[in-house]
């Protein structure tokens, strides 16, 4: 494959290419380093060509839903994200990057999300502190590659005030946590993985989750090459 990848010397020289979509928000440094530690060539990029060439794509997000959506639309990377999802390559949304995959958020009425999941994002219950800024335990709701190799209890780091409004027995829900109510913590459908928590800030547990995603990217990469041979 013809790829021009600006690797720096400390980057992993091999491994699948994971493009972390850089649309001008927040701290993406630790996400990049986390994916590199997990065995990927991970790049922060807004380059459509690189995102299209990558074996897997990550949509991060911090802060407010509306400002993240505005920045994503302004850069045209909303379309690129949807295209990546349609391509069936592994795709992961993290935190607000997960929330943006939904139809809308109660945080700001009238702002549409990407609508990959038809549900909305709602405020956490008023009975608990918002944001949930702490480590919490994941309850597995179904078997998924995201949580492979992890032993219960799975502690991960959350910073969020809203979460998807889905019942915990919805087929797309991979994990929930308890925070004032049963809160959706991870979802997945086909090639799309999404985490409300921050795997890149969840120490060894989080790095395992990133490694599982990199593994999925490697599997896609292999299948991709196999297809190219045919």
């Amino acid at each position, binding site marked *: 494959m013809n790829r021009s990848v600006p690797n720096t010397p400390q980057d992993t020289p091999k491994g699948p290419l994971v493009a972390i979509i850089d649309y001008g928000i927040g701290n993406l*440094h630790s996400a990049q380093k986390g994916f590199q530690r997990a065995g990927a060539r991970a790049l922060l990029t807004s380059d459509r060509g690189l995102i299209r060439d990558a074996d897997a794509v990550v949509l991060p997000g911090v802060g407010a839903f509306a400002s993240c959506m505005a920045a994503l639309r302004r850069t045209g990377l909303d379309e690129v994200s949807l295209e990546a999802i349609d391509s069936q390559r592994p795709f992961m949304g993290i935190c607000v990057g997960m929330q943006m995959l939904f139809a809308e958020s109660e945080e700001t009425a009238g702002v549409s999300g990407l609508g990959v999941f038809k549900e909305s994002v709602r405020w956490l219950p008023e009975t608990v502190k918002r944001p949930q800024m702490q480590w919490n335990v994941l309850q597995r709701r179904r078997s998924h590659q995201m949580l492979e190799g992890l032993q219960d209890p799975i502690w991960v*780091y959350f910073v969020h005030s809203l979460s998807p409004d889905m019942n915990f027995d919805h087929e797309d829900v991979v994990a929930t946590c308890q925070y004032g109510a049963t809160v959706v913590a991870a979802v997945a459908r086909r090639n799309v993985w999404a985490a409300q928590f921050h795997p890149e800030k969840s120490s*060894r547990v989080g790095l395992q989750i990133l490694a599982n995603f990199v593994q999925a990217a490697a599997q896609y990469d292999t299948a991709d090459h196999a297809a190219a041979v045919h």
Partner: protein
Amino acid sequence: MRAARIIPCLDVDGGRVVKGINFLGIRDAGDPVELAARYDAQGADELVFLDITASSDKRDTTVAMAQAVADEVFIPFTIGGGIRSLDDARKLLRAGADKVSINTAALRRPELIREISHEFGAQCCVVAIDAHSSTTAPSGYEVFSHGGRTRTGVDCMQWVSEAERLGAGEILLTSMDRDGTKQGFDLSLTSKVTSAVSIPVIASGGVGKLDHLVEGVTVGGADAVLAASIFHYGEHTISEAKQHLAQAGVVTRPADLGGGG
């Protein structure tokens, strides 16, 4: 479920950890990456680096430190001290810090809280408050600036509420009366603040034994407890602290996580 966080605090000067770090087995106790990795391995939930650098020409080394820590350590960390502007905050957050903690600059110009919160999200905007008991302040506590050297005349409870209103994501509350005394947190101050705001509060100042950490959560209502010397001098590990909290019925993320990988 609420799980209390345990946060070791490290003083840094020119990007190096200074002041009394005495871990066994660390060759160079000044290396922030090595210390951060050690605390991560022990089960620390977050880290706070307090930049005590006096000269501005050394500030860039703190940015480099943030990057070095973010390269190697995958738990959240905050950098505080000397952050005067949105641009200062931006540099540290871009370098990989998860949160910045502001104190004197926020007292001088409270809008800085709103600006950081608006630009980067409330979750990364920690307002640090140094409070001292006072006979003149209505709440009984006055806020000090400049690392506790300067009286501001501002009432602690008034400032806490304003910080929350302006968009602070978290309060780092230090009792100047207790700081360095090893007498335990000022639980009266802590519980006043935790009941006044709906954002998370980190209790700081005075931890001398593990029971103090328990009290900070159970009596003070703190979401997180910060300590320095009991961890730095090897008196207690983070793991011991977490076991102690668990025995007292306080939920924390256990330290002995294999986690695969």
